[in-house]
């Protein structure tokens, strides 16, 4: 079973993200909502309509970008926009859309000659060509380089700004945290957490970890210097490399204060707040595969 007892409600005008590792059931879930797949049981309403029974109506009011699809290899960008516009009663001006997506210069390029990022932007253009109320974006940035991914992120935020509701899937936790108003974390076909990224992280009792290199002196670093700072739970020192663990808003300020009043100089100060990755770890006991997404 790919998806089991997933229940969720997406609010008008928000970016809602289904996030989870590959095989968690994100695509199955979004395809059921899109009406491309029939669930074995349960009920789905999109804009108050049944995506299977009221197929035509739903499809003229939503936009979809699919994880696996393509266009005819010899079709030019403008032809694709022109063609897909003709499928809808009130299409938007696709020339302006191409401008906004930075594809105007590629108008006469055939699909097969576009880069991965350009193809994705064209898919987004086609998903927006009918001025949809809801936009489904399935694994929009998979396989893109970091630069193209950031450009797509800006685009998604802009879609939201124009008052659309966006339903997104991704296996990049960072992407989910960056874009979403609310996130549902999926694992093995079930929702393991659902809230805004901030709330999910706040709920987490995970410790913050800060590291620095003590530049001082001849003698080794004295962990006792910072151990008494409020919120600190643990200090690990390895030569001049120090890691401090703890909780609370003022952890970093407290540690820095203690160091300066003791006259200890330091460099390379870093602090890592808990992320959605940690939420996933806490809820499932598993690490999400990082080699693809994390940087």
């Amino acid at each position, binding site marked *: 079973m790919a998806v089991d007892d997933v229940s969720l409600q997406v609010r008008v005008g928000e970016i809602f993200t289904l996030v989870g590792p590959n095989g968690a059931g994100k695509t199955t879930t979004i395809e059921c909502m*899109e009406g*491309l797949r029939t669930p074995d049981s349960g009920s789905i309403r999109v804009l108050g309509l049944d995506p299977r029974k009221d*197929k*035509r*109506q739903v*499809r*003229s009011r939503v936009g*979809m970008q*699919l994880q*696996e*699809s*393509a*266009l*005819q290899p*010899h*079709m030019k960008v403008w*032809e694709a926009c*022109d*063609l*897909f516009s*003709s*499928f*809808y*009663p009130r299409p938007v001006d696709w020339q302006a859309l191409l401008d906004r997506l930075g594809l105007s210069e590629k108008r006469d390029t055939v699909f097969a000659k576009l880069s991965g990022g350009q193809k994705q932007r064209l898919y987004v253009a*086609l998903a927006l060509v009918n001025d949809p109320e809801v936009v489904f974006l399935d694994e929009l940035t998979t396989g893109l380089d970091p630069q193209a991914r950031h450009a797509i992120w800006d685009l998604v935020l802009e879609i939201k700004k124009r008052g659309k509701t966006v339903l997104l899937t991704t296996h990049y936790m960072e992407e989910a945290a960056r874009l979403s108003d609310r996130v549902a974390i999926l694992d093995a076909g079930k929702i393991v957490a659902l809230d805004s990224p901030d709330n999910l992280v706040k709920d987490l009792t995970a410790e913050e970890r800060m590291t620095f290199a003590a530049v001082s002196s001849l003698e080794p670093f004295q962990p006792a210097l910072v151990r008494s700072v409020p919120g600190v739970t643990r200090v690990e020192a390895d030569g001049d490399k120090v890691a401090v663990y703890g909780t609370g808003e003022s952890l970093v300020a407290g540690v820095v204060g203690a160091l300066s009043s003791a006259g200890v100089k330091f460099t390379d100060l870093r602090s890592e707040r808990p992320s959605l990755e940690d939420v996933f770890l806490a809820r499932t006991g598993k690490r999400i595969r990082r080699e693809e997404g994390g940087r």
Partner: protein
Amino acid sequence: MSQSLRAFRKLAWVEMKLYLRESIATFFTLGFPMMLLLMFGSIYGNKPTPIFGGYGTVDVSVPSYATMIIGTTGLMSLVPTIASYRERGILRRFSTTPIGPMVFLAAEVSVLFVMTVAGMALLVATAKVVYGLRFMGNVLSVGAAFVLTCLSFYSLGFLMSALLPTYRTASTVTMVVFYPMLFMSGAGIPRELLPAWMRKAAEIFPMTHAVTLLKGLWFGEPWSKFGREVAMLTAVLVVGTVASSRLFRWD
């Protein structure tokens, strides 16, 4: 203008341009039959000969090649194209829009038909100008048989494309079906030159019946002689249409 009609016109127009951009498909539809005609025409000329019932090589070749063009568009071009559209997710993308499968299929059929007619027109014009092609039939009769054969082959093509999941299998199977049919049915080589057993075996191919029908009407024979051929082609059309509309899938 209704939405479906607008979508149909736009889709047919784009697909037509895409067909012409596929230089191989265009060559086999428009260029190749003409090339064959000029090649055999320059070898045999178009003098009336007894084996062809008093007609010339070019005269008997034109209605046969017409069938070859229909097979080229309806099978060789349609089957792998649709299979690759499905395999690559191109059909899936159409399925996210409000247009239904009928709009898509109608647009595909129109493009194939226009291309088939264009190939036929080039062939007839060349044969007429270069070899003084003889035509003894009724234009409407031959036109009706041509349309029946086209639709019959397209429906067979759609059925095959519904059954063959990938571009590779689709193009392999189509070639395996198409080439023996082309050479044994009389579409590619005059049937009169083939041994009797091969002519007998070729009766299983719809293309054989299409050649018999088109050639007969071309030389002015009456429809009543071709009940069997019409029945065969109609059967293929009905079965192909019903089965392929049931089996059609976007992905």
